[in-house]
């Protein structure tokens, strides 16, 4: 049987050592009434047969081309350098456990230390953790940090946060017993005045997304300042690619920066596994959830790395831990580390700037079409933008028929946005693809 290693003789020899005539004595403490006759699953298949089944399932999905995918909403097609999977597919990395024994795990520990540093640099925050599950739970964890830190029991979702992040946050809030308020601006982005009207002293944190779910750029400095004015923490959920162009959370004084790292070298993969990241100011470091790697030295003064500040974590603190997270998304964080190393500052800028130029070119092209208009013409955007369209469902279905994964219908989540479709562009949507889309939308 696949993946089993013993010959019948091996088994017999092992039983003999134990002094058991069969497996039965080893299972004798299981009540007879519980024993099952057989596991109700078909017998196993050979590798080519199993893969035949799996391939046929994969074949029943439709793969849109990179260049003709204009749908984002939190998951994007981006160029993934071949170096990324070449590293993450190394058995030395992917078959390792969480690096509990540092001396035998320096490779992983150093990689995580590099990830933490890169996230800190990207967000311009003091420290970052070793990863979280995804962007949604990262927002929830950040909110819980703020609730504990401030001793307040309300958080305010300011503006268009990804609807699935907000829903996730609400679930965590129910458990942890705090309240989630939200305010959705009429103009697509929040003004400081609008926000001010919602703020008061019971609010632990103001949570906003930059660019927001519609792709629009918020006035992050103003939102942060307003939050601070009321003693609330400012939590920014950021798009990591956009940080090559947009002010970093650390630059505008946010307390916690979180986000989804899928764009940093991870395949869309129907929504996961991706990776959540979290960075914060030094003062909050002991409230961080999850793994943290720190520098350490051995008796000979050699630098190494270890899991550290574990007194925050479940295996030490149990019910008093900052979070219950244990297994996180290390391999995805490694992908992001390789990606960011490949790109460097210039590469990040190039990717972001190309996406921006193309998105604006596309927005212009589409907006010239009859029946298409910018949903929030006064707001600025990076590489995703909302258009108001007459019959979005029909249009998107027609595009799909032509092999184009068109924009995302925001009305699905927000009644006030019925008829609003979010289009995104990346470095993979070549100029000809933009033309094809515009043509197909006519």
């Amino acid at each position, binding site marked *: *049987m696949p993946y*089993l*290693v013993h010959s019948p003789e091996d088994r017999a020899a092992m039983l003999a050592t134990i002094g058991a005539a069969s497996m039965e004595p*080893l299972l004798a*403490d299981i*009540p007879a009434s*519980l024993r099952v006759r057989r*596991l109700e699953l078909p017998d196993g298949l050979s590798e080519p047969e199993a893969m035949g089944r799996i391939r046929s*399932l*994969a074949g029943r999905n439709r*793969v*849109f081309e990179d260049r003709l995918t204009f749908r984002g909403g939190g*998951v994007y097609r981006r160029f993934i350098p071949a170096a990324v*999977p070449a590293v993450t*597919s190394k058995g*030395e990395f*992917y*078959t390792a*456990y969480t690096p509990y*024994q*540092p001396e035998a795990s*320096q*490779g992983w520990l150093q*990689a995580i*230390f*590099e990830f933490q*540093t*890169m996230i800190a640099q990207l967000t311009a925050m003091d*420290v970052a953790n*070793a990863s979280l599950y*995804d962007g949604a739970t990262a927002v929830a964890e950040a909110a819980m940090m703020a609730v504990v830190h401030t001793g307040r029991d309300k958080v305010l979702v300011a503006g268009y946060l990804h609807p699935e992040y907000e829903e*996730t946050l609400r679930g*965590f809030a129910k*458990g*942890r017993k705090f309240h989630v308020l939200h305010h959705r601006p009429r103009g697509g982005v929040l003004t400081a005045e609008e926000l001010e009207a919602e703020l008061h002293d019971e609010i632990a944190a103001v949570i906003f997304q930059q660019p927001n779910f519609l792709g629009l750029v918020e006035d992050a400095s103003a939102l942060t300042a307003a939050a601070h004015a009321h003693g609330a923490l400012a939590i920014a959920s950021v798009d990591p690619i956009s940080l*090559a162009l947009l002010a970093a959370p650390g630059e505008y004084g946010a307390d916690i920066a979180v986000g989804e790292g899928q764009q940093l070298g991870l395949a869309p993969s*129907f*929504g996961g596994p991706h990776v959540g990241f979290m960075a914060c100011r030094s003062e909050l*470091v002991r409230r961080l959830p999850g793994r*943290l790697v720190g520098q350490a030295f*051995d008796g000979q003064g*050699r630098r190494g790395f*270890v899991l550290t500040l574990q007194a925050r974590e*479940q295996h030490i603190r149990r019910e008093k*831990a900052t979070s*219950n997270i244990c297994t996180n998304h290390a391999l995805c964080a490694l992908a992001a580390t390789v990606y960011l*190393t490949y790109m*460097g*500052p*210039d590469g*990040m800028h190039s990717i972001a*700037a190309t996406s921006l*130029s193309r998105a604006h*070119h596309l927005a212009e092209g589409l907006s010239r079409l009859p029946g298409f208009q910018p949903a929030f013409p006064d707001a*600025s*955007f990076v590489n995703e933008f909302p258009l108001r369209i007459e019959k979005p469902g029909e249009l998107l279905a027609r595009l*799909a028929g032509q092999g184009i*994964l068109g924009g995302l219908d925001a009305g699905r989540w927000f009644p006030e946005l019925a008829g609003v479709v979010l289009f995104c562009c990346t470095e993979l949507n*070549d*100029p000809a693809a933009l033309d094809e889309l515009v043509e197909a939308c006519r």
Partner: protein
Amino acid sequence: MTEQLAFEKSRESLPGPRLPAAGVPELAPAQVLPKGALRKTPPGLPRLSEPELMRHFSRLGAMNYSISKNFYPLGSCTMKYNPVVNEVAASLPGFALLHPYQPEETVQGALELMWDLERALCAVVGMDRMSLQPAAGAHGEWTGLRMIQAFHEDRGDERTEVLVPDSAHGTNPASAALCGFKVVEVKSAPDGRVSLPDLEAKLNERTAALMLTNPNTVGTFEKDILEIAGLVHAVGAKLYYDGANLNALMGICRPGDMGFDVVHLNLHKTFTTPHGGGGPGAGPVGVKAELEPFLPTPTVARPNGHFTFDYERPKSIGRVRSFYGNFGMLVRALTYILAMGGDGLTQASHDAVLAANYVRQNLEDVLEFPQPPPCKHEFVASARNLPNGMKALDLAKGLLERGFYAPTIYFPLIVPEAVMVEPTETESKATLDAFTDAVREIVQLAHDDPERLHREPTSLPVGRLDEVAAARNPVLRWRPAAAD
């Protein structure tokens, strides 16, 4: 030999990678974005060429222990072989390139895969429905407890406490706390099993659930499980199964038959999705029919031969993360289940139990065993009586020196100087024997030359690292020299 950080290898004037030109009129960010929205200083990422990058990570990989290299006896972690074909499956473009918001008619294969996997896992554990959404075991625990919470609330039954054995994994109390429950610890009997009197004493109408794993964390089957279930259910509470230890039981018995109401599984343990150095995993949660209405949204339904996501679930606790779960891990798990089949999974659990009892037997005369045999898929020894005051930690480091990883140490908390070994079904007898020999050699060394043992490991890139100093003065990131 240690390795420089990527940041330390970086050179300021090294040009970035070649990337596509925009091919449309190029806009400077300042042309379309408000000035205040712009980044002031570019992110200080390292600049490395691709050859340097690949070498860097290859060298880091080589500094790392992994299953590829040798045996990982980590108790509670089920570090079994990760089939390479699973990786091929997950990277098929028909899976890897799917956008989560594609039209449903374009992802029927993905939905069918989730449907099939849900049913296969239900068959293994004896539950009625399952959510594949949680990202890991702890996330599954939290999701399960949220459902139990919602179930009680739905009946207007306010319950505030969750019982957790003192032997439980740290995530159990942490998940309960995160869910707003008060955690009440249940004592273990001397044999490592739940103390029935203590359990009875602590169960009452405030009890929302008892969280258990079976075999428990000392590797022993909770033989009174039916009685325990009876007691729990009698007060109206629910019984929660932490599936981290399922590897002992496939095809032998099912948590669902034992009276468990909610089960989470760790696909990254029992179902061979790789641990990845600390994830991603997947922590599906199964429930009995009674709790089905509370499952996270969406579930996969098949109204009339066509698969669809079901969002119309008014009692649902809602989603617990973005999208539908760690889909890539689900692909791997189903590939594994198809290859193993019912027959293979059953033999796997038999072999896991066999291996644990075999290693235990071979160490009987050198370590202390608080619990009598037989164990199930793992066992816990105590290093308390090692010669010359040597500790579990010294045993662990001695194993590293000899080319093995260390067992889980100092867990569970109820065993002093705990050494928890889980051999799994995918390690050969020769490897298990070599491991036993290494432990014996270390125990002998503890006797003959404790000083030397205390200096181990000496043959790895670094020696024992000063973790206390590291935590006292945490350096959690590299900083450019100027900023230091």
